[in-house]
């Protein structure tokens, strides 16, 4: 308790003057208001910064994955009569989900889904010595060079995914379940698989389906077999557009005496496809409905519209948004926010980030 006696000498007991109180109150208010204003702005900005970084990070990851896989789409066939790019035999980019689970029909073409065939970590090309049919075939391949000496099934290990293709456009993907000597048991990564004559090529590949899960707002990746995982969350738009050769496709061209959707047994074109008007001097936009009207090459689940052989470039568009509502504006959806949120302070808002890139897959542009 404060008493008169405890005060310092000279101060007396007259208290503060009105002026002193007013000065003290003014100073205190000034300091408190300034501090609160600074603190509140700083807190808003400081809270938004990690979210902004996160939005950028997710957008970059999505684009990096897509760019890398689209650029690598296709696979090489090392040797044999079909040696060269497999993109001459089949389309390595298809605008729909493909694989063992949830595969879409060949007549489906979506702007927000894309299945790619990309090279696998293991390499090598083998050639079948007998016909292959069914969804769980046993396949035997030629053992001699250039297969590595002493390695079963031409060095392709169990667990790998292989592409089997012939020159007509017929192809299918299989998982290698076990290998023994020059043979292996396979399991088709589709519900129906075509039959191949002896001499079909066997090449290790990987299947990558990227698709937009609109309900969960995720960009997801499916390997055509068992793994279907989200890649990036809080995605609000994914679009793939295709650009391609204005001239009609001339491949796949079957070996003499065989026919397919483009050629008859004598090697004559069955029904010429239309030439398109290019945007400039090289590529023409390929609308999705172009991929759903035939003519159809291949068989089974991997049947394809031959216009897919025109694809030379893919335009990728991915848009991601802030995860929490508080970082998105309450305004109606517009250029900065696809989904309205609860944020009212401009300094604390984190706009959506939309990235666009056009990728010209190397294997689809050989000779261009």
């Amino acid at each position, binding site marked *: 308790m404060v008493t008169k006696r405890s*005060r310092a000498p000279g101060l007396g007991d007259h208290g503060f003057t009105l002026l002193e109180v007013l000065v003290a109150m003014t*100073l205190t208010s000034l*300091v408190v208001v300034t501090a609160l204003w600074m603190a509140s702005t700083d807190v808003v900005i400081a809270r938004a910064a990690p979210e902004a970084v996160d939005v950028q990070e997710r957008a*970059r990851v999505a684009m990096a994955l897509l760019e890398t896989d689209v650029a690598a789409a296709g696979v090489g066939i090392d040797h044999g009569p079909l040696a060269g790019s497999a993109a001459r035999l089949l389309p390595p980019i298809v605008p729909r989900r493909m694989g063992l689970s949830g595969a879409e029909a060949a007549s489906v073409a979506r702007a927000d889904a894309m299945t790619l065939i990309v090279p696998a970590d293991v390499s090598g090309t083998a050639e079948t010595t007998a016909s292959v049919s069914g969804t769980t075939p046993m396949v035997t391949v030629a053992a001699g060079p250039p297969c590595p000496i002493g390695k079963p099934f031409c060095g392709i290990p169990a667990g790998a995914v292989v592409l089997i293709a012939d020159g007509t456009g017929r192809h299918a993907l299989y998982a290698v379940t076990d290998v023994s000597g020059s043979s292996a048991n396979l399991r088709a990564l589709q519900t129906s698989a075509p039959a191949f004559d002896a001499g079909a090529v066997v090449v290790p590949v990987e299947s990558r389906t990227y698709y937009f899960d609109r309900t969960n707002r995720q960009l997801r990746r499916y390997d055509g077999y068992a793994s279907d995982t989200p890649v990036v969350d809080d995605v609000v738009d994914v679009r793939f557009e295709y650009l391609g050769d204005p001239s009609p496709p001339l491949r796949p061209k079957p070996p003499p005496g065989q026919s397919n959707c483009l050629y008859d047994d004598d090697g004559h074109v069955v029904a010429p496809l239309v030439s398109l008007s290019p945007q*400039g*001097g*090289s590529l023409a936009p390929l609308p999705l409905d172009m991929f759903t009207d035939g003519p159809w090459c291949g068989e089974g689940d991997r049947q394809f519209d031959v216009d897919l052989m025109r694809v030379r470039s893919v335009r990728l568009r991915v848009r991601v948004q802030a995860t929490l509502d508080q970082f998105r504006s309450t305004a109606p959806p517009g250029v900065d926010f696809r989904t309205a949120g609860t944020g009212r302070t401009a300094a604390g808002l984190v706009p959506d*980030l939309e990235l666009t890139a056009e990728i*010209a897959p190397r294997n689809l542009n050989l000779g*261009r």
Partner: protein
Amino acid sequence: MRVPREAGSAMGFTLVEVLIALALLAGAGLALATVVLRASRDVTAARRQTIETTMAVERMEQLRSLTWGWDAASPPGRVSDATTNLATNVPSSGGQGLMVSPSDALDVNEDGYADFADVRGKWVGAGTTVPPSAVFARRWRVSFVPSVADALVFEVKVEPVGAGRSGGSVESVRLVTVKGRKAE
């Protein structure tokens, strides 16, 4: 010499003491605010650099996809795209395709070798004049590899312009590649 206060005395602080304490507090607060603002500015700069990079990659890939090959006809001849205009929003005709650009195309806005985008990376114009809403300039140069026939050098540079130059240290992005003419 000042006599120390008695413990529990009610002498209080002098105005000078209060002012010094306030100044110290304000200094610390300002320093903290500077850090927060700097971090915020860096995040904005990173966003812009991400957009610059995707813009540069896009133009590089578009250049790569233009025809630069051999005609399969007999005798085979060179086929080169000399008409695509990449400077428009969507590639169109009436451009120079892969024709060699002016040597200063990376630093000066040359017609057909420069376009502009807004703060979101959306195309807003092309040509020699920077549109008012432009934040990024994308320029590209096409040249021959010295002493090598049929090999082109593509260079793409994206840098901030206009309003993009203020309010942060946004650097430019530059990509370079070589494309050879080859048969399939």
